[in-house]
């Protein structure tokens, strides 16, 4: 096929996809212009100050938490050598398999006043419940802890990838110029890894802002609580949309801050990555300290809650456990798999479109398409429902007039609505990974390929995609795990008799049957483990191979 023909269509396709994905967000935002039913004034006067204060503290606390856990562990396993490092390297990603609401349930079960820990303290000391102080798990601090424990892997993953790929020459130069290990870290490695770290924190924060399960269970009033309260208790969807718009503005500011922070910096990869760099050998007390630092997030973020869930499932699990679970598992996995493929494909088109036509309209589309990640799932669900049912009614009328055939709702009746919602919500994650990969490929490569006579489509296929393979896999796996954990949009957009593991866990948990809910929760975690471990291997794989393949791709002769 003609080489020139792909040229105009790729950026156009990118725009189209970005516009589609932005549709739910825009639908929600447009509600702002409708007259509300008075709930907005009540909320603004009585509740908003508290929502803003709590949200800011939650965001700041979680940012600090994920950075502390993610950065320290990423640096340790990337540049130091200590016993157990090889296991920790991948095990540190495991908490990502935990939905935040599940870990919140689990810790509440352990630490609340009637839980085993406090009961043990009372039995041991003979105190009554009000004779001592125990940190309340259901609090703002508790929510920060829970979200930090399950979201730090974003910082860890991106930070570790950045540290591993840093040129050894630069770090060695820093050491030669008299920097100690700390100096080299603070003055060279950290600034170079900053875009990756900031991106990781941003992902974690967007998910924090979208979280409802944890904050609702802990009774911490934040923005999402307000959105739910406006819509469901005050019966005023317009005010709910106004709150969502404030939330969007907040996210927009965060994203803008990140761009501004990155400024004009570009980090294309030059020179060999750090694989051959001499690692710092940690011995004795330092090795113990390093292992401890890594075991804290792993133990509290995965081992302890998974162990507790397994115990609960063992003593009083779901009575429906059995053949039904195969169906649930299949539904969860197939949804997650299809969504991952769609989201990654969309991300490649949007990301590459941006590279081809980095103009202002493209930048805007690109940015809005990524906002869905910070919107609570149920709000996205409504944002999806409105345009999709409109399209559905149009389609129905069209089919009826042309073919005299009246189907049901084709778009919302199947899983298409769900897929749409997932992509709208999770495109930010896959886009982030694809963009990060594309940014590392120097534009000189594009120019070289184009100079050798390849069109943009073939350049993408033969140059970028092979180099991006790792990023694509990462993107797909994260979307997969996120979809497995997603609840509110799944709940409302799914077809008849279509349950997933998350839905099963929700049904039992909403009925306050936490012990029974443990079976499905554990199944989500276990099913999420496989992609998470793949993801971890991906990250810990030595980088030379990828580098070689980069060169090999360029040199490989074109097929006839």
């Amino acid at each position, binding site marked *: 096929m003609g080489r020139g023909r792909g040229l105009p269509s790729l950026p156009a396709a990118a725009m189209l996809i970005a516009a589609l994905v932005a549709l739910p967000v825009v639908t929600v935002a447009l509600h702002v212009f409708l007259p509300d039913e008075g709930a907005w004034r009540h909320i603004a006067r009585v509740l908003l100050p508290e929502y803003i204060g709590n949200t800011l503290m939650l965001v700041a606390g979680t940012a600090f938490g994920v950075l502390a856990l993610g950065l320290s562990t990423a640096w340790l396993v990337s540049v130091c050598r200590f016993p157990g490092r090889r296991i920790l390297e991948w095990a540190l990603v495991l908490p990502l398999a935990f939905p935040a609401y599940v870990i919140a349930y689990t810790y509440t079960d352990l630490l609340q006043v009637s839980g085993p820990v406090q009961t043990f303290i009372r039995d041991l000391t003979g105190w009554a419940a009000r004779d001592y102080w125990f940190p309340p798990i*259901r609090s703002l601090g508790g929510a920060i802890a829970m979200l930090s424990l399950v979201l730090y892997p974003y910082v860890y993953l991106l930070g570790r990838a950045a540290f591993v790929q840093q040129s050894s020459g630069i770090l060695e130069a820093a050491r030669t110029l008299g920097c100690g290990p700390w100096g080299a870290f603070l003055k060279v490695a950290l600034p170079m890894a900053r875009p990756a770290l900031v991106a990781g924190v941003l992902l974690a924060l967007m998910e924090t802002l979208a979280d409802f399960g944890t904050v609702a269970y802990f009774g911490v009033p934040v923005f999402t609580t307000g959105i739910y309260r406006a819509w469901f208790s005050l019966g005023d969807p317009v005010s709910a949309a106004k709150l969502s718009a404030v939330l969007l503005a907040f996210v927009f500011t965060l994203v803008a801050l990140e761009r501004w922070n990155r400024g004009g910096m570009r980090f294309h990869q030059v020179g060999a990555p750090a694989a051959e760099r001499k690692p710092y050998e940690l011995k004795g007390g330092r090795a113990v300290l390093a292992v401890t630092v890594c075991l804290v997030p792993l133990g509290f973020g995965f081992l302890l809650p998974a162990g507790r869930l397994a115990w609960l499932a063992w003593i009083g699990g779901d009575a429906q456990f059995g053949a039904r679970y195969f169906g649930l598992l299949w539904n969860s996995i197939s949804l997650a798999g299809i969504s991952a493929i769609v989201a990654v494909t969309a991300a490649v088109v949007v990301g590459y479109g941006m590279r081809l036509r980095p103009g202002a309209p493209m930048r805007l589309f690109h940015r809005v398409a990524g906002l869905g990640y910070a919107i609570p799932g149920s709000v996205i669900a409504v944002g999806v429902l409105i345009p999709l049912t409109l399209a559905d009614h149009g389609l129905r009328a069209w089919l009826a007039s042309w073919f005299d055939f009246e189907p049901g709702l084709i778009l919302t009746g199947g*899983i298409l609505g769900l897929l749409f919602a997932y992509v709208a919500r999770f495109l930010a994650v896959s886009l982030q990974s694809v963009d990060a990969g594309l940014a590392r490929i120097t534009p000189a490569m594009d120019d070289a390929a184009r100079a050798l006579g390849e069109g943009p489509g073939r350049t993408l*296929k033969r140059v970028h995609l092979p180099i991006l393979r790792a990023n694509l896999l990462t993107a797909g796996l994260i979307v997969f795990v996120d979809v497995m954990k997603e609840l509110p949009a799944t709940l409302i*957009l799914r077809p008849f008799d279509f349950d997933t593991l998350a839905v099963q866990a929700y049904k039992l948990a909403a009925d306050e049957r936490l012990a029974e809910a443990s079976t499905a929760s554990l199944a989500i975690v276990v099913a999420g483990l496989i992609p998470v471990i793949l993801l971890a291997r991906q990250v810990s794989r030595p980088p030379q191979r990828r580098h070689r393949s980069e060169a090999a791709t360029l040199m490989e002769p074109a097929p006839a």
Partner: protein
Amino acid sequence: MSATRRILASFALAVTLGMLALAAGCSREPENDAGVINIYSARHYQSDEALYRAFTDATGIRVRRIEGTDDALIERILQEGAASPADILFTVDAGRLWRAEQAGVFQAVESPRLSQRIPSQLRHPDGKWFGFSSRARLIFYDPERVEPGMITRYEDLADPRWIGEICVRSGGHIYNLSLMASMIAHHGLEPAEAWARGLVANFARNPQGGDTDQIRAVAAGECGIAIANSYYFARFMASDDPADRALVEKIRWVFPNQGDRGAHVNVSGAGIVVNAPNASQALAFLEFLATSEAQTQFARGNNEYPVVAGAALENPSLEQLGPFKADTLDAALYGVHQAEAQRALDRVGWK
């Protein structure tokens, strides 16, 4: 084929496949002789599946369901409009039934059987929705901290003598909103708000967790008094777990306001959706829910109270809780006063 096109083609293929995979399941046509009904349910009890099975066994009508949160289901029905496959909306709170009715979700149904069996305060006057089971909002207390007989009414909870004693869940939760709405309906907004203010002043801790957690907190000694729905406690009573047994031993319960209007009860109910494609089968389902068999199933399987007089409980826990006088306030008023209740609770700081 260029790579661009291949990407677009595979994208389109994935979308189409996904669509087709389930488009087959969304036809509005009945599939067998007896037919099928499509239920949108905000009830998420595993025992409901037994109820649906019993209905299919009795009538041959197949049940398909989507379970979700009430307001999202209402939104989905509204957006689907005339093409909606929904036959029945089944939900757990009178306030929500009222809201769905206001939004125009339900159609009026005439069924002598239903209007004869279901008390008039538990159904819509035009037959747009019917309550099928109820639960009472009880007060639980620790007899070591609260002398039995000291608390007999919801109003007593605002007494300053109980400062630092009360545990209850969030003020945004529908159970508390409906309770507050009933207070507003009986006393008027200002007295009800004063009551809520007094109650908030007596909180032992910030509202958190679910009803079960409040009951557990009383047993653990963190608070002396809890407000929770009857069926959570009935579940503890029926448990085999020795820890749950010990909990039940420690706690006393009160059906409030037995000397006057009766305990606050809320219903779980259903109605036929305005564009229901299978309206006659849907009516058969509603009438089935009012049979003694189904009514007993609500009590036996899910610790809820039947609404049809004389239906057997067959549930030792409910029998042990004992008979009580229920508030006969029109359940629709919970919906009428709901937003007002939320604003009042926000003002008094019931988080």
